[in-house]
Structures are given as structure tokens and as C-alpha cells.
């Protein structure tokens, strides 16, 4: 597993995009799949960044499978904050660019899981 943790600040999104693309490239993903996952990870991070306390951390864990790469993006939610509606632009982008995507919340920490498939 590979994990990248950055401060919960939009200025770090570029770093997470670069890390995502670099890892996917090393794992042999084709260029179009790399770009899809890069955008999807950015979306998941941007979604959580506006819901997390500003002094918090955003963590992206990459789980490397034989044929898949899953990115699980987690951040604590501010009190009363809720993930956006499935019809939001952010979810439309994520659903349009990943093989599988889901979101969950445990003990005040939200996690968005995105899976890219090497073939498919």
C-alpha cells in the first residue's frame, strides 16, 4: 500500500494529482486511464476539502491489486457537514471516470473509494 497525507488545503491538490498519475504510470496503466484516475482523485479530494476542518489532514491510500488500483481518500468531516448529493457535478465526474466508486463515513471520518481497472 502507498499512502500520501497532505494538509487540508486546496494548494496541495496538484501534488496529489501528480502522485496519482506517477503511481498509475509505474503500475503500467495506459495514458487515458491515468488521466481518468487523476481527475477522479482530484474530485474526491476537492469534495472532502470543503467539508473538513482547515487544520486537518487529507489522506489518500492507494491499494494496488493485480488488475486494479484503488484510491481511498479520507478526511475528518466538520460537525454537521455532509457529502454532496449523488447528482452533483463532482459525483458525475467521479462516476464517469472510474470503474467503481463509493463513499462512506465512520466515526466522523469520510472516505471516498475509487477504483480504476487496468483492462476494461
Amino acid at each position, binding site marked *: 500500500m502507498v499512502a500520501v497525507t497532505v494538509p487540508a488545503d*486546496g*494548494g496541495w*491538490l*496538484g501534488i496529489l*494529482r501528480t502522485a496519482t498519475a506517477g503511481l498509475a504510470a509505474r503500475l503500467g496503466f495506459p495514458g487515458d486511464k491515468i*488521466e*481518468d484516475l487523476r*481527475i477522479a482523485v*482530484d*474530485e474526491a*479530494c*476537492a469534495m472532502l*476539502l*470543503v467539508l473538513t476542518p482547515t487544520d486537518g489532514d487529507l489522506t489518500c491510500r492507494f491499494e494496488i491489486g493485480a488488475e486494479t488500483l484503488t484510491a481511498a481518500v479520507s478526511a475528518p468531516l466538520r460537525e454537521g457537514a455532509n457529502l454532496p448529493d449523488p447528482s*452533483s*457535478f*463532482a459525483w*458525475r*465526474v467521479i*462516476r*464517469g*471516470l472510474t470503474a467503481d466508486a463509493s463513499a462512506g463515513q465512520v466515526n466522523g471520518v469520510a472516505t471516498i473509494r475509487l477504483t480504476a481497472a487496468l483492462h476494461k
Partner: protein
Amino acid sequence: MFGVEQVSGNGAVTVKISGDIDLATADKVGDALASALGSSANVRVDLSGVTFLDSTGIRALVQAYRLASSKGGSLHVFGAKHWVAKVLDVTGVGPLLSAPAE
């Protein structure tokens, strides 16, 4: 690097955006488009220099489109490449933000 440039001519204003449009820069895009709509009712947005676009940028573009419509004006985008065009497409806003066929 992110940048915004505004050019006037032929009764319209063109706003050329370059670099990445994400959570860190979407507000600057929104401000630039609102400012352009303050000087012209018809605004064209040149996306040919945009290297990254996500839903935060889509939201800024759609809000500017609504602002233009509410003033009886127009706003459309052109020049989107590759994944910038794909994000416009998967969010379903491509047709809304494209110029009507001439």
C-alpha cells in the same frame, strides 16, 4: 501556471484561461468571468490553454453562464481539449456552454 487574460473586440469580451482550474483557482475563474460580464453582456471563454478542469471549475463556468443569462447576455466556452472536453461532457454541461451552431 494559472492565468487569466481578457481581450475585447467585436462587441464581445474573450476571457482566456490557462493552467489548472481546480479548487485552488476556481474562485479566480468565477471572479474573472463576473468582471468580464460587468463590461460586456456577451463573453466567450477560451479554454484552449487549460491543462486541468474539475467540477469546481464546472461550477464556476455554470454560475457565470447563469449570471450572463440573467442579464440577457450570453456566455460560452470554446477550445476545450482532451480531458477538459471530457469533464464538460461527463458533467452534461458541454451542450449548455457551447456556442450555438452558426
